[in-house]
C-alpha cells in the first residue's frame, strides 16, 4: 500500500500517542503475566519454572495463609464500603435530588473530600484516631462515653473498620453524585405518574428510582469492586506496609507490594512471587468485574 500525503499525516498524529499507551500500559501488563512464570534472583530473571510461583502463593504455607488473610480483608472492605459508601450515597443522592434550599451547597460539601489526596485523608484520620489526643476519643470522653474510647488503629478488632470509615468519608461524594446524575435523568412525566399512584416514599424508591438508576449503580458497583481489590494507599498510610497490628489490616495490595519490593520485616524482594500475585489479582478482578457488569447491565432499563 502506498502512503499518500494524508496517510503520512494520519500516521504522524496517531503513532506517538499509541506508542505511549503501548509502552507504558499494554507492554507492562503483558510482561507481568510472563514474569510470573520465572524464578527471579533479585532484579535478574532466572529459569522458567512454570506454575511454581502460583502454587507457592496459593497452596504453600506461610504464603497461602497470608494470601487468604489479605483476600478475606479485601472482601470485608468491599462489602462494608458497598453499604457505607454506595448505599449511603444512594440515599444522600435521593435527598439532594429534591433540590431543597441549600442543595447546591450540600452537593459541593459532599464532593469536597473526593478531590483530596488519599495521603492527606489517611494522615488526617490517623491523627483523629490517636488514642490519647485524637478528636474521636476526646469527643467520646467529652460526652461522657469515655468508656468507648479505643486505640482505634492499634488493636486488631477495630483497625480495619477504622480504615473503612476513613475511606467512606473520603469517597462518599463520588457514588452520591453519580446516583444524583442518574436520578436527574428520570423523565418528569414518569415521576408525576408515580406520584398519582402512591404517596409512599419507600415504594417510589424501590419501584421507580432504584430500577431507573440501574446504569449508575452498575458503574459505581464495578468501580468500587475494582477499587476495593486494588486498595493500597489508605492502608499503607494509616496501618503501614505490614498491615499492622498483626496483619489485621493486611490487604492484597499491601501484600503484593511487600512481596515484590520487600517489606519492613518480610525480607527480600521477590519479583516472581509478586508477579504471580499480581496476575491472580488481575484475573480475579477482570473475571468478577465482567460478571458483575453483565449481570447488572441485564437489569438496566433503557429510557
Amino acid at each position, binding site marked *: 500500500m502506498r502512503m499518500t500525503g494524508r496517510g503520512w499525516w494520519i500516521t504522524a498524529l496517531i503513532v506517538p500517542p499509541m506508542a505511549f499507551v503501548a509502552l507504558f500500559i499494554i507492554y507492562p501488563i503483558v510482561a507481568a503475566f510472563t514474569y510470573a512464570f520465572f524464578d527471579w534472583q533479585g*532484579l535478574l530473571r532466572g529459569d522458567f519454572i512454570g506454575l511454581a510461583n502460583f502454587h507457592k502463593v496459593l497452596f504453600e504455607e506461610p504464603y497461602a495463609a497470608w494470601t487468604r488473610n489479605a483476600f478475606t480483608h479485601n472482601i470485608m472492605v468491599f462489602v462494608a464500603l458497598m453499604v457505607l459508601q454506595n448505599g449511603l450515597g444512594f440515599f444522600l443522592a435521593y435527598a439532594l435530588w429534591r433540590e431543597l434550599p441549600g442543595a447546591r451547597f450540600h452537593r459541593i460539601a459532599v464532593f469536597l473530600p473526593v478531590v483530596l489526596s488519599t495521603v492527606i485523608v489517611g494522615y488526617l484520620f490517623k491523627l*483523629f484516631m490517636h488514642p490519647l489526643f485524637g478528636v474521636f476519643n476526646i469527643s467520646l470522653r467529652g460526652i461522657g462515653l469515655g468508656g468507648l474510647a479505643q486505640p482505634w488503629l492499634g488493636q486488631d478488632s477495630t483497625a480495619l473498620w477504622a480504615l473503612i470509615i476513613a475511606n467512606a468519608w473520603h469517597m462518599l461524594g463520588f457514588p452520591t453524585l453519580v446516583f444524583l446524575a442518574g436520578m436527574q435523568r428520570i423523565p418528569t412525566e414518569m415521576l408525576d405518574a408515580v406520584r398519582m399512584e402512591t404517596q409512599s416514599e419507600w415504594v417510589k424508591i424501590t419501584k421507580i428510582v432504584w430500577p431507573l438508576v440501574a446504569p449508575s449503580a452498575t458503574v459505581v458497583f464495578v468501580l468500587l469492586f475494582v477499587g476495593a481489590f486494588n486498595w493500597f494507599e489508605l492502608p499503607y498510610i494509616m496501618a503501614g506496609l505490614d498491615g499492622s497490628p498483626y496483619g489485621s489490616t493486611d490487604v492484597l495490595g499491601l501484600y503484593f507490594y511487600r512481596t515484590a519490593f520487600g517489606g519492613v520485616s518480610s525480607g527480600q524482594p521477590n519479583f516472581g512471587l509478586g508477579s504471580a500475585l499480581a496476575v491472580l489479582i488481575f484475573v480475579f478482578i477482570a473475571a468478577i468485574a465482567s460478571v458483575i457488569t453483565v449481570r447488572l447491565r441485564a437489569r438496566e432499563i433503557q429510557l
Partner: protein
Amino acid sequence: MSAEPNTYYDRRGIIGTLGRDGLIQIILVANTVIMLAPILIMLFSAFKSTQQIFKSPFGFPDFANLTNFTKIWEQTNFLRYLLNSFVVTGASMALILILGTMAAYALGRYRFFGAGFILMFFIAGLTLPLKLAIIPLFILMRDMGILNNQLSLIFVYTAMGLPSTVFIMTGFIRTLPNELEDAARMDGASEARIMWAIMLPLVRPAMVIAAIQNVVPIWNDFFFPLVFIQNDALKTLPQGLTTFMGEYTTDWGVLFAGLTLSAAPIIAIYIVLSRQFISGMTSGAIK
C-alpha cells in the same frame, strides 16, 4: 377529572410535606457537617500550638499565629515538593492534551483502515489496573535509565491519562460539522493548517473536561512516586508529605499545618470550579 388532586403536595397535606422535607434537610445538614468538620479541624489546628490542639481540639484559633507555617517554610523541603508536583502534573497534562488531541483528531476526522481497532486499543487502556503492572514498569524505567527521575512519573501519567482523553475527545470531535473543514480544503489549506487554525479552537470544551478528569488523580498520586522516586529533592507533594509526617510526629501543630498546605491548592481550585470538577470527575461514570 379536574377535581382529582393533581399534585403530590395536595394529597400529602402541607404538614406532611414539611415534615418530610424537614427530615431530609436535617439529614443533609448533618452529612455536610460530617464532611466539612475534619477539614475545618485540620485548618484550625494548623494555627494552634500542639498544647492548644490537645487541650481544645475544636476551639477557634488565632489566625495570626503563623508559627507552624514559618517552621515548615524554614525547616522542611515542603516548597520543593510543591514545586515538583506542579512540574510533574503540568508536564503530564500538557503531554496528555497534546497527544490525546492528536489521536482523537485522527480518529474523529478521518476514515482510515484500522481506526476502529485503534480506538479499541485506547479503550482497553482505560480499564487496566496499572498498579498491578508495577514490577515490569519498574524494570522498564530502570532500563530506560529514568528511575529516580521525574520523567518516569510524567511518562506513566501521560499513558494513564491518554485513554480517557482520547475517548472523550474522539466523541466530541466527531460531532463537529464538516462545512468549515471542507471550505478550507477547497481553498487549498493543508491538513495541518486545517487542524490547527480551524478545528482546534472548537475542541476546547472537550479539552477542559479531559483535563479535569485527569488532573486530580495525577496531582494526588502517591503510588508511582513511592516506587520510582527515592531522592528527597525529587519527591512530589503526597510522597513528600509521608517524609514530613515521619519527621514531625510529635509536633501536631506542624503536622496539621503541613496537611493544610497540601490540601489548600486543590481545595481552592475546587471551590472556584466546583461544577466543572464534579462533572469532570464523574463524567467517566455517567453515560
